[in-house]
């Protein structure tokens, strides 16, 4: 069998071993805290507190995870996972729909103030959630959307980044395609639905992954607007589990919750990895 050459430079002997050694060491350093969290979620409370912390999983896996999922500390983790899921999917899907439509409008229609609108959208890139958090809170509170999914999702749904990305993608599509569709008799929305949407699918997938994780990891906003524990999302929920004052922390359950919080983003990334990379790398034309 022919030897495979994978890089510009063929590595052999010591070089190969050294690079792999470094890589493995790097992975271990990054992975170690996660491993510790996993170990901690499978042992009992006294075992964690007792100085040399165990490095190998214990036998309490089922008990700890059942406890976390169904009773938790304040709320069952299952509820928080569901809340996070609704918020992350809501934000990702909402952002994609809105930015697809606004990019479509900006690229394919000539209307007064088109450029102004584009630059307004573009300007919001400079305003992260944290900057506008107080006025946004005021508005959401005024609408009575505290402690609701709509309150969690809507303020985060407009996305300059995604609009900009789709705009750039639409600009690479040859004009003739739109003209051919026009000659074929497609009205604008038909063109959008039949031609643009299928052509954007890899970009949509890539964005979905990014936006899902963005939504999932939201911390500050849910912390502000959800006071009812049943509306807690998991990322903020972990923090809420930490004891205040003299309470005793139930570390195994907290660690089990942390591990559980990591699972959905990992599943999304892995299951959409192929589409994700294609979306970032090639431009299908």
């Amino acid at each position, binding site marked *: 069998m022919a030897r495979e050459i994978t890089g510009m430079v063929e590595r052999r002997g010591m070089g190969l071993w050294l690079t792999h050694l470094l890589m493995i060491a790097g992975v271990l350093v990054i992975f170690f805290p996660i491993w510790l969290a996993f170990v901690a979620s499978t042992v009992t409370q006294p075992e964690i507190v007792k100085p040399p912390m165990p490095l190998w999983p214990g036998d309490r896996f089922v008990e700890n995870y059942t406890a976390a999922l169904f009773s938790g500390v304040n709320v069952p983790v299952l509820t928080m996972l569901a809340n996070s899921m609704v918020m992350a999917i809501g934000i990702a899907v909402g952002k994609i729909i809105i930015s697809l439509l606004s990019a479509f409008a900006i690229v394919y229609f000539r209307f007064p103030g088109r450029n102004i609108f584009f630059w307004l959208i573009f300007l919001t890139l400079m305003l992260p959630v944290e900057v506008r958090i107080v006025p946004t809170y005021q508005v959401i509170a005024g609408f009575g959307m505290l402690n609701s999914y709509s309150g969690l999702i809507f303020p985060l749904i407009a996305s300059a980044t995604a609009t900009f990305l789709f705009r750039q993608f639409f600009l690479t599509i040859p004009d003739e395609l739109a003209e051919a569709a026009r000659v074929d008799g497609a009205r604008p929305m038909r063109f959008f639905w039949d*031609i643009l949407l299928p052509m954007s699918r890899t970009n949509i997938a890539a964005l979905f992954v990014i936006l899902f994780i963005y939504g999932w990891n939201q911390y500050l906003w849910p912390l502000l607007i959800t006071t009812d524990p049943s509306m807690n999302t998991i990322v903020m929920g972990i923090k809420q589990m930490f004891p205040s004052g003299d309470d005793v922390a139930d570390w195994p359950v907290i660690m089990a919750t942390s591990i559980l919080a990591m699972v959905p983003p990992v599943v999304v990334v892995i299951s959409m990895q192929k589409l994700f990379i294609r979306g970032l790398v090639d431009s299908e034309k």
Partner: protein
Amino acid sequence: MATVDLDNIKKRFGTTEVIKGVSVNVQDGEFVVIVGPSGCGKSTLLRMVAGLETISEGELRINGRRANDLEPMDRDIAMVFQNYALYPHMSVAQNMGYGLKIAGLPKPEIAAKVAEAARLLQLTELLDRKPKQLSGGQRQRVAMGRAIVREPSVFLFDEPLSNLDAKLRVQMRLEIKELQSKLGITSLYVTHDQVEAMTMADRMIVMNAGVAEQIGTPLDVYERPETLFAAQFIGSPSMNVIKAEGREGGLHVGEMVLPNPTGVEGPVMLGLRPEHLVPDPEGPIEMQVLLAEPLGANTLLHGKLASGTGFTASLPGVHRVMAGEGALRLTIEARNMHLFDSETGRRLG
């Protein structure tokens, strides 16, 4: 089946006028080629007929009905684009059937029409492929198929062959012409390639800078070019144009004296096609040969006249003339001499 009438069509972008009033009546089933150099407005003219550009002034009638303000889909036209503009995510069959699908035809009917068009274009084997998996010529055929299935009254072609290699271009040229005469559909075809124009057109429109310089059959344009531009644009290698003066004794070009077929007086532009020149030791034209290009069937001789004007002759067969070998004497029949007004460039006589 339809006629297309352009009545003093104009197009302005802002204050620049790019089409300065073109009028032509295209007969039912006629194949009209619009030819001209890039930037002459030929594509814009076609796109106005298609409805992709608005018409600034004048009237467009398709089948006698005013079409200025109709949407492309309501004009009963089909268009083939330069880069084919196939929908990349659809199969060949879906590409061809898309217009029918929008028109709301039932699926079996669409499939039947697509199959029929595919048979006509030898695409049957490829119906399930994506455009990406096709060669240039095949994509071109799919684009044709997409136009055919809709059974439009007018075909519009926007430089459909310019992305193909030379050999394929010749083949597709024949196929398109054959198909068009078989279907008998009125066609407007834009190209910058004069060979395409000559071979395909029933009539051609020679355009330059937004003006139709001449409208006529290819041979008309070749034999009786109305303007200097048309004379030089059609024909390869292009016509020699030299300054001459009608005086006593004939047409004077420097020292040379040529017969004056129309008896014109004063300064004129004289056009001589390279292929009409015949070697003749007694001939009135004398050129210095600087370069010979043997093409096999004929030989192009490039050189200059005594006055320094560049001059080209195309002689049949192989002539092993060495460059710089000296003077070559040529003659030309009087009926092959074209005279143009030296100021307006219009044909004289």
